[in-house]
Protein backbone atom coordinates (compact mmCIF):
# COMPACT_ATOMS: atom_id res chain seq x y z
CA UNK A 1 0.00 0.00 0.00
CA UNK A 2 1.46 3.35 -0.99
CA UNK A 3 1.90 5.92 1.70
CA UNK A 4 -0.37 8.55 0.26
CA UNK A 5 -3.30 6.16 0.15
CA UNK A 6 -3.65 6.38 3.94
CA UNK A 7 -4.06 10.13 3.84
CA UNK A 8 -6.87 11.93 2.16
CA UNK A 9 -8.44 15.18 1.14
CA UNK A 10 -5.33 17.03 0.06
CA UNK A 11 -3.40 16.04 3.16
CA UNK A 12 -0.53 13.75 2.45
CA UNK A 13 0.04 10.76 4.64
CA UNK A 14 2.02 11.97 7.60
CA UNK A 15 4.27 9.32 9.06
CA UNK A 16 4.56 11.30 12.30
CA UNK A 17 0.83 11.16 12.74
CA UNK A 18 0.98 7.38 12.89
CA UNK A 19 1.17 6.54 16.55
CA UNK A 20 4.03 4.30 17.68
CA UNK A 21 2.86 0.86 18.65
CA UNK A 22 2.72 0.70 22.47
CA UNK A 23 4.42 -2.71 22.37
CA UNK A 24 7.67 -0.88 21.65
CA UNK A 25 7.47 0.77 25.06
CA UNK A 26 7.09 -2.63 26.73
CA UNK A 27 10.00 -3.92 24.69
CA UNK A 28 12.18 -0.98 25.76
CA UNK A 29 11.15 -1.62 29.37
CA UNK A 30 12.24 -5.24 28.98
CA UNK A 31 15.62 -4.13 27.60
CA UNK A 32 15.97 -1.61 30.41
CA UNK A 33 15.29 -4.22 33.08
CA UNK A 34 17.71 -6.68 31.46
CA UNK A 35 20.25 -3.83 31.33
CA UNK A 36 19.82 -3.10 35.04
CA UNK A 37 20.37 -6.75 35.96
CA UNK A 38 23.37 -6.97 33.61
CA UNK A 39 24.83 -3.88 35.29
CA UNK A 40 24.17 -5.14 38.78
CA UNK A 41 25.47 -8.57 37.78
CA UNK A 42 28.74 -7.13 36.47
CA UNK A 43 29.05 -4.96 39.56
CA UNK A 44 28.09 -7.40 42.30
CA UNK A 45 28.68 -10.88 40.87
CA UNK A 46 31.15 -10.33 38.06
CA UNK A 47 28.78 -12.32 35.83
CA UNK A 48 26.35 -11.66 33.05
CA UNK A 49 22.64 -12.50 33.36
CA UNK A 50 21.87 -13.50 29.80
CA UNK A 51 25.26 -13.90 28.16
CA UNK A 52 27.56 -16.77 28.75
CA UNK A 53 30.34 -15.33 30.87
CA UNK A 54 31.89 -18.57 32.06
CA UNK A 55 32.39 -20.23 28.66
CA UNK A 56 30.41 -23.20 29.84
CA UNK A 57 28.30 -23.41 26.71
CA UNK A 58 28.82 -23.25 22.98
CA UNK A 59 26.72 -20.18 22.50
CA UNK A 60 27.10 -16.50 23.34
CA UNK A 61 23.94 -16.68 25.44
CA UNK A 62 23.53 -18.45 28.71
CA UNK A 63 21.02 -20.89 27.28
CA UNK A 64 20.15 -22.50 30.57
CA UNK A 65 19.11 -19.16 32.04
CA UNK A 66 17.16 -18.13 28.94
CA UNK A 67 15.28 -21.42 29.11
CA UNK A 68 14.48 -20.96 32.78
CA UNK A 69 13.33 -17.38 32.25
CA UNK A 70 10.71 -18.42 29.72
CA UNK A 71 9.90 -21.81 31.24
CA UNK A 72 8.93 -20.32 34.58
CA UNK A 73 6.46 -17.90 32.99
CA UNK A 74 5.12 -20.20 30.26
CA UNK A 75 2.29 -21.77 32.28
CA UNK A 76 1.03 -18.53 33.81
CA UNK A 77 1.63 -17.03 30.36
CA UNK A 78 -0.96 -19.42 28.90
CA UNK A 79 -3.45 -18.10 31.45
CA UNK A 80 -2.39 -14.54 30.66
CA UNK A 81 -3.37 -15.07 27.00
CA UNK A 82 -6.93 -15.53 28.22
CA UNK A 83 -6.72 -12.68 30.73
CA UNK A 84 -5.52 -10.41 27.92
CA UNK A 85 -8.67 -11.07 25.91
CA UNK A 86 -10.94 -10.65 28.92
CA UNK A 87 -9.30 -7.36 29.89
CA UNK A 88 -9.38 -6.01 26.31
CA UNK A 89 -13.09 -6.87 26.40
CA UNK A 90 -13.36 -4.54 29.39
CA UNK A 91 -13.77 -7.31 31.95
CA UNK A 92 -11.63 -9.03 34.54
CA UNK A 93 -11.22 -12.70 35.39
CA UNK A 94 -10.24 -13.75 38.91
CA UNK A 95 -11.05 -17.42 38.45
CA UNK A 96 -8.27 -18.97 36.29
CA UNK A 97 -6.04 -19.82 39.26
CA UNK A 98 -8.82 -21.87 40.84
CA UNK A 99 -9.83 -23.32 37.47
CA UNK A 100 -6.23 -24.53 37.23
CA UNK A 101 -6.68 -26.24 40.60
CA UNK A 102 -9.92 -28.05 39.84
CA UNK A 103 -8.94 -28.92 36.27
CA UNK A 104 -5.60 -30.33 37.34
CA UNK A 105 -7.32 -32.54 39.94
CA UNK A 106 -10.02 -33.83 37.60
CA UNK A 107 -7.75 -34.30 34.58
CA UNK A 108 -5.09 -36.03 36.62
CA UNK A 109 -7.61 -38.46 38.10
CA UNK A 110 -8.22 -39.73 34.55
CA UNK A 111 -4.51 -39.86 33.70
CA UNK A 112 -3.27 -42.17 36.43
CA UNK A 113 -1.44 -45.47 36.01
CA UNK A 114 -2.54 -48.58 37.91
CA UNK A 115 0.98 -49.68 38.81
CA UNK A 116 3.89 -47.31 39.25
CA UNK A 117 6.28 -50.16 38.52
CA UNK A 118 5.82 -53.88 37.98
CA UNK A 119 3.70 -55.17 40.82
CA UNK A 120 3.66 -51.90 42.80
CA UNK A 121 0.15 -50.52 42.93
CA UNK A 122 -0.28 -46.76 42.52
CA UNK A 123 -0.95 -45.64 46.11
CA UNK A 124 -2.78 -42.52 44.94
CA UNK A 125 -5.09 -44.24 42.46
CA UNK A 126 -8.52 -42.68 42.72
CA UNK A 127 -10.74 -45.31 41.19
CA UNK A 128 -9.63 -48.92 40.99
CA UNK A 129 -11.10 -49.50 37.51
CA UNK A 130 -10.07 -46.23 35.90
CA UNK A 131 -6.42 -46.14 34.98
CA UNK A 132 -4.06 -46.17 32.00
CA UNK A 133 -6.55 -44.37 29.77
CA UNK A 134 -5.40 -42.88 26.47
CA UNK A 135 -4.00 -39.37 26.94
CA UNK A 136 -6.86 -37.80 25.00
CA UNK A 137 -9.30 -38.68 27.81
CA UNK A 138 -7.79 -36.45 30.53
CA UNK A 139 -7.17 -33.70 27.96
CA UNK A 140 -10.78 -33.65 26.77
CA UNK A 141 -12.19 -33.92 30.29
CA UNK A 142 -9.84 -31.21 31.54
CA UNK A 143 -10.73 -28.87 28.70
CA UNK A 144 -14.42 -29.54 29.28
CA UNK A 145 -14.05 -28.50 32.93
CA UNK A 146 -12.32 -25.26 31.96
CA UNK A 147 -14.80 -24.52 29.19
CA UNK A 148 -17.73 -25.13 31.52
CA UNK A 149 -16.28 -22.87 34.22
CA UNK A 150 -15.49 -20.14 31.68
CA UNK A 151 -18.92 -20.40 30.09
CA UNK A 152 -20.60 -20.05 33.49
CA UNK A 153 -18.51 -16.91 34.11
CA UNK A 154 -19.54 -15.54 30.73
CA UNK A 155 -23.23 -16.39 31.09
CA UNK A 156 -23.38 -14.80 34.55
CA UNK A 157 -21.67 -11.63 33.35
CA UNK A 158 -23.59 -11.30 30.09
CA UNK A 159 -27.09 -12.20 31.23
CA UNK A 160 -27.37 -11.41 34.94
CA UNK A 161 -25.32 -8.24 34.42
CA UNK A 162 -23.38 -8.72 37.63
CA UNK A 163 -19.91 -7.15 37.52
CA UNK A 164 -17.20 -9.48 36.14
CA UNK A 165 -15.24 -8.97 39.36
CA UNK A 166 -18.06 -10.53 41.41
CA UNK A 167 -18.95 -13.32 38.98
CA UNK A 168 -15.36 -14.50 38.63
CA UNK A 169 -14.67 -14.02 42.35
CA UNK A 170 -17.53 -16.45 42.96
CA UNK A 171 -16.05 -18.90 40.45
CA UNK A 172 -12.63 -18.48 42.07
CA UNK A 173 -13.95 -19.55 45.47
CA UNK A 174 -16.25 -22.24 44.07
CA UNK A 175 -13.64 -23.85 41.84
CA UNK A 176 -11.09 -23.94 44.64
CA UNK A 177 -13.66 -25.69 46.81
CA UNK A 178 -14.41 -28.14 44.01
CA UNK A 179 -10.69 -28.87 43.65
CA UNK A 180 -10.51 -29.85 47.33
CA UNK A 181 -13.77 -31.81 47.22
CA UNK A 182 -12.75 -33.89 44.21
CA UNK A 183 -10.27 -36.06 46.12
CA UNK A 184 -11.15 -34.98 49.66
CA UNK A 185 -8.00 -32.91 49.74
CA UNK A 186 -5.67 -35.77 48.73
CA UNK A 187 -3.07 -35.13 46.02
CA UNK A 188 -3.46 -37.19 42.82
CA UNK A 189 -0.25 -38.52 41.34
CA UNK A 190 1.51 -40.94 38.98
CA UNK A 191 0.24 -40.09 35.50
CA UNK A 192 0.74 -42.18 32.39
CA UNK A 193 3.89 -41.54 30.37
CA UNK A 194 1.99 -39.91 27.55
CA UNK A 195 0.29 -37.49 29.98
CA UNK A 196 3.61 -36.75 31.65
CA UNK A 197 5.06 -35.88 28.24
CA UNK A 198 2.65 -32.95 27.82
CA UNK A 199 4.52 -30.75 30.26
CA UNK A 200 7.97 -32.34 30.16
CA UNK A 201 11.08 -30.36 29.35
CA UNK A 202 10.41 -27.32 27.21
CA UNK A 203 6.91 -28.44 26.21
CA UNK A 204 5.22 -25.69 28.29
CA UNK A 205 7.20 -23.10 26.35
CA UNK A 206 6.30 -24.57 22.97
CA UNK A 207 2.63 -24.71 23.93
CA UNK A 208 2.75 -21.13 25.25
CA UNK A 209 4.41 -19.81 22.09
CA UNK A 210 2.07 -21.74 19.77
CA UNK A 211 -1.00 -20.47 21.62
CA UNK A 212 0.40 -16.94 21.72
CA UNK A 213 0.87 -16.92 17.94
CA UNK A 214 -2.60 -18.42 17.42
CA UNK A 215 -4.37 -15.84 19.57
CA UNK A 216 -2.24 -12.99 18.24
CA UNK A 217 -3.51 -13.84 14.75
CA UNK A 218 -7.08 -14.32 15.97
CA UNK A 219 -7.18 -10.97 17.75
CA UNK A 220 -5.61 -9.14 14.84
CA UNK A 221 -7.27 -10.70 11.83
CA UNK A 222 -10.68 -12.04 12.79
CA UNK A 223 -14.10 -10.61 13.52
CA UNK A 224 -13.78 -12.10 17.02
CA UNK A 225 -10.75 -9.92 17.69
CA UNK A 226 -12.33 -6.80 16.24
CA UNK A 227 -15.46 -7.22 18.35
CA UNK A 228 -13.41 -7.88 21.49
CA UNK A 229 -11.65 -4.55 21.08
CA UNK A 230 -14.86 -2.77 20.07
CA UNK A 231 -16.84 -3.94 23.11
CA UNK A 232 -13.97 -3.04 25.45
CA UNK A 233 -13.70 0.37 23.84
CA UNK A 234 -17.39 1.30 23.77
CA UNK A 235 -19.92 -1.35 24.71
CA UNK A 236 -22.91 0.88 23.97
CA UNK A 237 -21.66 1.80 20.51
CA UNK A 238 -20.92 -1.85 19.80
CA UNK A 239 -24.44 -2.84 20.76
CA UNK A 240 -25.94 -0.07 18.63
CA UNK A 241 -23.76 -1.20 15.74
CA UNK A 242 -25.31 -4.63 15.84
CA UNK A 243 -22.59 -6.61 17.59
CA UNK A 244 -24.08 -9.41 19.68
CA UNK A 245 -22.36 -8.22 22.84
CA UNK A 246 -23.75 -10.91 25.16
CA UNK A 247 -22.81 -13.81 22.87
CA UNK A 248 -19.37 -12.38 22.46
CA UNK A 249 -18.78 -12.00 26.19
CA UNK A 250 -19.71 -15.64 26.78
CA UNK A 251 -17.29 -16.68 24.04
CA UNK A 252 -14.37 -14.66 25.42
CA UNK A 253 -14.79 -15.91 29.01
CA UNK A 254 -15.17 -19.46 27.71
CA UNK A 255 -11.89 -19.18 25.81
CA UNK A 256 -10.23 -17.81 28.96
CA UNK A 257 -11.54 -20.84 30.86
CA UNK A 258 -10.23 -23.22 28.20
CA UNK A 259 -6.79 -21.59 28.36
CA UNK A 260 -6.76 -21.94 32.15
CA UNK A 261 -7.59 -25.64 31.69
CA UNK A 262 -4.72 -26.05 29.22
CA UNK A 263 -2.39 -24.42 31.73
CA UNK A 264 -3.64 -26.87 34.36
CA UNK A 265 -2.97 -29.88 32.14
CA UNK A 266 0.54 -28.69 31.33
CA UNK A 267 1.26 -27.82 34.97
CA UNK A 268 0.01 -31.11 36.44
CA UNK A 269 1.90 -33.01 33.76
CA UNK A 270 5.09 -31.06 34.47
CA UNK A 271 4.78 -31.65 38.22
CA UNK A 272 3.59 -35.27 37.76
CA UNK A 273 1.00 -34.59 40.43
CA UNK A 274 -2.09 -32.52 41.09
CA UNK A 275 -2.97 -30.81 44.34
CA UNK A 276 -5.99 -28.79 45.31
CA UNK A 277 -3.78 -25.79 46.07
CA UNK A 278 -2.39 -25.60 42.53
CA UNK A 279 -2.59 -22.27 40.77
CA UNK A 280 -3.22 -20.08 43.80
CA UNK A 281 -2.50 -16.44 42.86
CA UNK A 282 -1.92 -17.38 39.21
CA UNK A 283 -4.78 -15.16 38.12
CA UNK A 284 -3.13 -12.14 39.70
CA UNK A 285 0.24 -12.90 38.14
CA UNK A 286 -1.52 -13.31 34.78
CA UNK A 287 -3.31 -9.98 35.20
CA UNK A 288 0.00 -8.38 36.20
CA UNK A 289 1.67 -9.73 33.03
CA UNK A 290 -1.06 -8.26 30.84
CA UNK A 291 -0.95 -4.91 32.61
CA UNK A 292 2.84 -4.73 32.37
CA UNK A 293 2.38 -5.65 28.70
CA UNK A 294 0.36 -2.50 28.10
CA UNK A 295 -3.16 -3.93 28.16
CA UNK A 296 -5.49 -1.25 29.48
CA UNK A 297 -7.68 -2.29 32.41
CA UNK A 298 -10.37 0.04 31.09
CA UNK A 299 -10.58 -2.16 28.00
CA UNK A 300 -10.16 -1.69 24.28
CA UNK A 301 -6.38 -1.54 24.21
CA UNK A 302 -3.52 -4.01 24.36
CA UNK A 303 -2.26 -7.04 22.51
CA UNK A 304 -1.05 -10.59 22.87
CA UNK A 305 2.42 -9.45 21.84
CA UNK A 306 2.41 -6.96 24.71
CA UNK A 307 1.39 -9.67 27.16
CA UNK A 308 4.15 -11.99 25.93
CA UNK A 309 6.66 -9.19 26.47
CA UNK A 310 5.09 -8.53 29.86
CA UNK A 311 5.54 -12.19 30.80
CA UNK A 312 9.20 -12.00 29.76
CA UNK A 313 9.68 -8.98 32.02
CA UNK A 314 8.23 -11.13 34.79
CA UNK A 315 10.61 -13.98 33.96
CA UNK A 316 13.65 -11.71 33.84
CA UNK A 317 12.80 -10.21 37.24
CA UNK A 318 12.41 -13.61 38.89
CA UNK A 319 15.60 -14.98 37.31
CA UNK A 320 17.45 -11.75 37.91
CA UNK A 321 16.80 -11.85 41.63
CA UNK A 322 17.85 -15.47 41.85
CA UNK A 323 20.95 -14.61 39.83
CA UNK A 324 21.81 -11.77 42.19
CA UNK A 325 21.14 -14.14 45.11
CA UNK A 326 18.63 -11.73 46.55
CA UNK A 327 15.75 -12.82 48.74
CA UNK A 328 12.42 -13.66 47.18
CA UNK A 329 10.86 -10.97 49.37
CA UNK A 330 12.50 -8.26 47.31
CA UNK A 331 11.27 -9.98 44.18
CA UNK A 332 7.66 -9.55 45.11
CA UNK A 333 8.20 -6.00 46.29
CA UNK A 334 9.79 -5.07 42.98
CA UNK A 335 7.07 -6.88 41.04
CA UNK A 336 4.50 -4.78 42.86
CA UNK A 337 6.33 -1.57 42.02
CA UNK A 338 6.61 -2.55 38.36
CA UNK A 339 2.90 -3.32 38.06
CA UNK A 340 1.96 0.11 39.39
CA UNK A 341 4.74 1.79 37.43
CA UNK A 342 3.59 0.23 34.17
CA UNK A 343 0.08 1.62 34.57
CA UNK A 344 1.30 5.07 35.64
CA UNK A 345 3.62 5.26 32.62
CA UNK A 346 0.86 4.11 30.29
CA UNK A 347 -1.51 6.79 31.53
CA UNK A 348 1.18 9.43 31.20
CA UNK A 349 1.85 8.32 27.63
CA UNK A 350 -1.82 8.50 26.74
CA UNK A 351 -2.15 12.02 28.08
CA UNK A 352 0.91 13.11 26.16
CA UNK A 353 -0.46 11.58 22.95
CA UNK A 354 -3.77 13.34 23.41
CA UNK A 355 -2.16 16.73 23.85
CA UNK A 356 0.14 16.27 20.86
CA UNK A 357 -2.61 15.88 18.29
Amino acid at each position, binding site marked *: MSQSSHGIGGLTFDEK*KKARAPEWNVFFALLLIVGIFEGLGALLMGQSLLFDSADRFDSIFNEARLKIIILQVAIIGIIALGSTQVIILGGIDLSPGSIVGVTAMIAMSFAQVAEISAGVVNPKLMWAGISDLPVIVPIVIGLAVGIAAGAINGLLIAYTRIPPFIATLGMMVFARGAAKWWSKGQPISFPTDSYAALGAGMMPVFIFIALAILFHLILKYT*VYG*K*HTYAIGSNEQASRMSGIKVEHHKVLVYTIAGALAALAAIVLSSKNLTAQAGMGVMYELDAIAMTVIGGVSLSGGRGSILGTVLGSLIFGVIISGFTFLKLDAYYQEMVKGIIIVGAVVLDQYRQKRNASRM
Partner: protein
Amino acid sequence: MLDYTNAEVVLETRDLTKHYGGVHALEGANFKIHKGEHVAIMGDNGAGKSTFVRQITAVEQRTRGDIILNGQPTQFDSPIEAREAGIETVFQNLALADDLDVPSNLFLGREKVKFKLGPFSILDNKAMREATMAGLVKTGVKIPNILNSIQNMSGGQRQCVAIARTAAFHSKLTIMDEPTAALGVQETAQVENIIRTLKEQQEPVILISHNMRQVFDLMDRIVVFRRGRICANLTIDGSIKPEDVVAYITGAKTGEEFPEAM
Protein backbone atom coordinates in the same frame (compact mmCIF):
# COMPACT_ATOMS: atom_id res chain seq x y z
CA MET B 1 -35.36 26.46 -5.06
CA LEU B 2 -35.90 22.94 -6.18
CA ASP B 3 -39.36 21.54 -5.98
CA TYR B 4 -39.43 18.08 -4.51
CA THR B 5 -43.17 17.58 -4.63
CA ASN B 6 -42.91 15.21 -7.54
CA ALA B 7 -39.76 13.45 -6.44
CA GLU B 8 -39.84 9.92 -5.12
CA VAL B 9 -40.88 9.76 -1.45
CA VAL B 10 -38.13 8.11 0.61
CA LEU B 11 -39.82 8.08 4.00
CA GLU B 12 -43.31 8.86 5.07
CA THR B 13 -45.00 8.71 8.44
CA ARG B 14 -48.75 8.68 8.91
CA ASP B 15 -50.35 9.47 12.23
CA LEU B 16 -47.13 8.56 14.01
CA THR B 17 -47.88 8.67 17.73
CA LYS B 18 -45.99 7.88 20.90
CA HIS B 19 -47.43 7.98 24.39
CA TYR B 20 -45.34 7.43 27.49
CA GLY B 21 -48.10 6.44 29.86
CA GLY B 22 -50.21 9.58 30.05
CA VAL B 23 -47.63 11.79 28.36
CA HIS B 24 -48.40 12.36 24.69
CA ALA B 25 -44.86 12.96 23.49
CA LEU B 26 -45.78 12.65 19.84
CA GLU B 27 -49.25 12.98 18.43
CA GLY B 28 -50.29 12.17 14.88
CA ALA B 29 -47.17 13.20 13.01
CA ASN B 30 -47.56 13.16 9.23
CA PHE B 31 -44.24 13.66 7.57
CA LYS B 32 -42.67 13.10 4.16
CA ILE B 33 -39.16 13.36 2.83
CA HIS B 34 -38.27 13.02 -0.84
CA LYS B 35 -35.19 11.81 -2.62
CA GLY B 36 -32.43 14.41 -2.44
CA GLU B 37 -34.33 16.56 0.00
CA HIS B 38 -32.80 17.99 3.16
CA VAL B 39 -35.33 18.61 5.91
CA ALA B 40 -34.67 20.32 9.22
CA ILE B 41 -36.61 19.38 12.30
CA MET B 42 -36.84 22.23 14.78
CA GLY B 43 -38.65 22.82 18.00
CA ASP B 44 -38.18 23.57 21.65
CA ASN B 45 -36.84 21.02 24.12
CA GLY B 46 -39.54 18.45 24.73
CA ALA B 47 -41.40 19.39 21.57
CA GLY B 48 -41.21 15.84 20.28
CA LYS B 49 -38.29 16.06 17.83
CA SER B 50 -36.22 13.35 19.41
CA THR B 51 -39.27 11.20 20.12
CA PHE B 52 -40.10 11.42 16.41
CA VAL B 53 -36.59 10.29 15.44
CA ARG B 54 -36.59 7.51 18.02
CA GLN B 55 -39.72 6.03 16.43
CA ILE B 56 -38.30 6.16 12.90
CA THR B 57 -35.01 4.59 13.96
CA ALA B 58 -36.80 1.99 16.11
CA VAL B 59 -34.92 2.98 19.26
CA GLU B 60 -38.44 2.95 20.70
CA GLN B 61 -41.62 1.28 19.51
CA ARG B 62 -44.42 3.59 18.44
CA THR B 63 -47.86 3.62 20.04
CA ARG B 64 -49.58 3.78 16.66
CA GLY B 65 -49.16 5.04 13.14
CA ASP B 66 -47.34 3.94 10.02
CA ILE B 67 -43.76 4.34 8.86
CA ILE B 68 -43.36 3.86 5.14
CA LEU B 69 -39.87 3.49 3.74
CA ASN B 70 -39.61 3.53 -0.07
CA GLY B 71 -43.29 2.77 -0.36
CA GLN B 72 -43.12 -0.22 1.98
CA PRO B 73 -44.76 -0.08 5.42
CA THR B 74 -42.11 -1.09 7.96
CA GLN B 75 -41.98 -2.42 11.48
CA PHE B 76 -38.44 -2.49 12.81
CA ASP B 77 -37.85 -4.24 16.10
CA SER B 78 -34.46 -2.71 16.76
CA PRO B 79 -32.22 0.15 15.61
CA ILE B 80 -30.06 -2.45 13.92
CA GLU B 81 -32.91 -3.52 11.66
CA ALA B 82 -33.62 0.10 10.80
CA ARG B 83 -29.99 0.56 9.93
CA GLU B 84 -29.91 -2.54 7.81
CA ALA B 85 -32.93 -1.18 5.93
CA GLY B 86 -30.90 1.94 5.16
CA ILE B 87 -31.78 4.46 7.88
CA GLU B 88 -28.47 5.68 9.27
CA THR B 89 -28.41 7.86 12.36
CA VAL B 90 -25.62 10.12 13.52
CA PHE B 91 -26.17 10.55 17.22
CA GLN B 92 -25.35 13.54 19.32
CA ASN B 93 -23.22 11.41 21.60
CA LEU B 94 -21.01 9.68 19.09
CA ALA B 95 -21.50 5.97 18.73
CA LEU B 96 -17.84 5.31 18.05
CA ALA B 97 -15.26 3.01 19.60
CA ASP B 98 -12.41 5.31 20.58
CA ASP B 99 -9.63 2.77 20.53
CA LEU B 100 -10.35 1.55 17.03
CA ASP B 101 -9.17 3.08 13.77
CA VAL B 102 -11.38 4.68 11.16
CA PRO B 103 -12.17 1.61 9.01
CA SER B 104 -13.00 -0.44 12.09
CA ASN B 105 -15.44 2.20 13.25
CA LEU B 106 -17.06 2.55 9.85
CA PHE B 107 -17.58 -1.18 9.60
CA LEU B 108 -18.35 -1.83 13.26
CA GLY B 109 -20.79 -4.71 13.47
CA ARG B 110 -20.80 -5.35 9.72
CA GLU B 111 -17.20 -6.13 8.93
CA LYS B 112 -16.21 -7.33 5.50
CA VAL B 113 -14.78 -10.83 5.66
CA LYS B 114 -12.57 -12.81 3.31
CA PHE B 115 -13.30 -16.19 4.74
CA LYS B 116 -16.39 -17.13 6.69
CA LEU B 117 -15.72 -19.06 9.89
CA GLY B 118 -18.40 -17.98 12.37
CA PRO B 119 -16.99 -15.59 14.94
CA PHE B 120 -13.51 -16.41 13.70
CA SER B 121 -14.15 -15.19 10.17
CA ILE B 122 -11.07 -13.60 8.64
CA LEU B 123 -11.38 -9.83 8.20
CA ASP B 124 -10.88 -8.29 4.78
CA ASN B 125 -8.92 -5.30 6.05
CA LYS B 126 -7.86 -4.17 2.60
CA ALA B 127 -11.41 -3.99 1.28
CA MET B 128 -12.52 -2.11 4.39
CA ARG B 129 -9.65 0.36 4.05
CA GLU B 130 -10.52 0.98 0.42
CA ALA B 131 -14.22 1.40 1.13
CA THR B 132 -13.31 3.79 3.93
CA MET B 133 -11.22 5.88 1.59
CA ALA B 134 -14.05 5.90 -0.92
CA GLY B 135 -16.55 6.93 1.76
CA LEU B 136 -14.28 9.71 2.98
CA VAL B 137 -13.71 10.98 -0.54
CA LYS B 138 -17.44 11.00 -1.10
CA THR B 139 -18.00 13.15 1.97
CA GLY B 140 -14.84 15.19 1.58
CA VAL B 141 -13.64 14.33 5.07
CA LYS B 142 -10.01 15.03 5.80
CA ILE B 143 -8.31 12.56 8.11
CA PRO B 144 -4.50 12.55 8.33
CA ASN B 145 -4.21 8.82 8.81
CA ILE B 146 -7.18 6.49 8.84
CA LEU B 147 -5.19 3.74 10.55
CA ASN B 148 -4.83 5.68 13.80
CA SER B 149 -7.29 5.15 16.61
CA ILE B 150 -9.89 7.88 16.61
CA GLN B 151 -9.50 8.83 20.27
CA ASN B 152 -7.00 11.55 19.55
CA MET B 153 -8.92 13.05 16.67
CA SER B 154 -10.78 16.32 17.02
CA GLY B 155 -14.49 16.35 17.70
CA GLY B 156 -15.08 17.49 14.13
CA GLN B 157 -13.04 14.69 12.64
CA ARG B 158 -14.83 12.16 14.82
CA GLN B 159 -18.21 13.51 13.84
CA CYS B 160 -17.09 13.33 10.22
CA VAL B 161 -16.17 9.67 10.69
CA ALA B 162 -19.64 9.05 12.11
CA ILE B 163 -21.25 10.74 9.12
CA ALA B 164 -18.95 9.02 6.65
CA ARG B 165 -20.45 5.74 7.87
CA THR B 166 -23.65 6.65 6.11
CA ALA B 167 -21.82 7.42 2.88
CA ALA B 168 -19.88 4.17 2.99
CA PHE B 169 -23.06 2.13 3.19
CA HIS B 170 -25.20 3.88 0.60
CA SER B 171 -27.92 4.52 3.11
CA LYS B 172 -31.36 5.54 1.95
CA LEU B 173 -31.81 8.19 4.62
CA THR B 174 -29.41 9.92 6.98
CA ILE B 175 -30.69 11.33 10.24
CA MET B 176 -28.45 13.69 12.18
CA ASP B 177 -29.32 14.62 15.73
CA GLU B 178 -27.59 17.94 16.44
CA PRO B 179 -24.32 16.85 14.82
CA THR B 180 -22.57 20.16 15.53
CA ALA B 181 -23.89 20.89 19.02
CA ALA B 182 -20.57 20.08 20.67
CA LEU B 183 -18.25 21.37 17.95
CA GLY B 184 -16.19 24.52 17.45
CA VAL B 185 -16.58 26.94 14.55
CA GLN B 186 -14.10 25.31 12.23
CA GLU B 187 -15.30 21.80 13.03
CA THR B 188 -18.88 22.86 12.47
CA ALA B 189 -17.88 24.14 9.04
CA GLN B 190 -16.34 20.71 8.32
CA VAL B 191 -19.56 18.92 9.17
CA GLU B 192 -21.64 21.41 7.21
CA ASN B 193 -19.49 20.80 4.19
CA ILE B 194 -20.27 17.13 4.41
CA ILE B 195 -23.97 17.89 4.53
CA ARG B 196 -23.54 19.99 1.37
CA THR B 197 -21.71 17.13 -0.29
CA LEU B 198 -24.55 14.76 0.58
CA LYS B 199 -26.91 17.32 -0.94
CA GLU B 200 -24.97 17.32 -4.21
CA GLN B 201 -25.20 13.54 -4.25
CA GLN B 202 -28.98 13.62 -3.81
CA GLU B 203 -28.81 11.85 -0.47
CA PRO B 204 -31.82 12.72 1.69
CA VAL B 205 -31.03 14.08 5.16
CA ILE B 206 -33.11 14.83 8.24
CA LEU B 207 -31.28 17.29 10.47
CA ILE B 208 -32.30 18.11 13.99
CA SER B 209 -30.80 21.46 14.85
CA HIS B 210 -31.28 24.53 17.00
CA ASN B 211 -28.96 26.52 14.81
CA MET B 212 -31.12 28.81 12.64
CA ARG B 213 -28.23 29.97 10.46
CA GLN B 214 -27.23 26.40 9.75
CA VAL B 215 -30.74 25.35 8.87
CA PHE B 216 -31.28 28.28 6.52
CA ASP B 217 -27.91 27.69 4.87
CA LEU B 218 -28.24 23.97 4.32
CA MET B 219 -31.84 22.80 4.32
CA ASP B 220 -34.73 22.85 1.89
CA ARG B 221 -37.54 22.73 4.35
CA ILE B 222 -38.23 23.16 8.05
CA VAL B 223 -40.69 21.05 10.00
CA VAL B 224 -41.48 22.62 13.36
CA PHE B 225 -42.59 20.50 16.30
CA ARG B 226 -44.48 21.96 19.22
CA ARG B 227 -46.02 20.03 22.11
CA GLY B 228 -45.74 16.73 20.31
CA ARG B 229 -47.34 17.93 17.09
CA ILE B 230 -46.04 19.16 13.80
CA CYS B 231 -47.15 22.77 13.83
CA ALA B 232 -45.50 24.14 10.73
CA ASN B 233 -44.01 22.96 7.47
CA LEU B 234 -42.04 25.72 5.85
CA THR B 235 -40.22 25.54 2.56
CA ILE B 236 -37.14 27.71 2.76
CA ASP B 237 -37.50 30.24 0.01
CA GLY B 238 -37.21 34.01 0.09
CA SER B 239 -40.52 34.51 1.86
CA ILE B 240 -39.71 32.72 5.08
CA LYS B 241 -37.62 34.45 7.75
CA PRO B 242 -35.92 33.10 10.88
CA GLU B 243 -38.25 35.23 13.00
CA ASP B 244 -41.22 33.35 11.57
CA VAL B 245 -39.67 30.03 12.49
CA VAL B 246 -38.98 31.25 16.02
CA ALA B 247 -42.57 32.37 16.25
CA TYR B 248 -43.78 28.88 15.34
CA ILE B 249 -41.31 27.25 17.74
CA THR B 250 -42.41 29.41 20.67
CA GLY B 251 -46.07 29.20 19.80
CA ALA B 252 -46.44 32.93 19.12
CA LYS B 253 -47.66 31.97 15.67
CA THR B 254 -49.71 28.85 15.22
CA GLY B 255 -49.92 27.23 11.86
CA GLU B 256 -52.80 25.01 10.95
CA GLU B 257 -52.23 21.30 11.35
CA PHE B 258 -50.59 19.70 8.36
CA PRO B 259 -52.33 16.47 7.63
CA GLU B 260 -50.25 16.14 4.47
CA ALA B 261 -47.12 17.73 5.80
CA MET B 262 -45.49 18.62 2.58
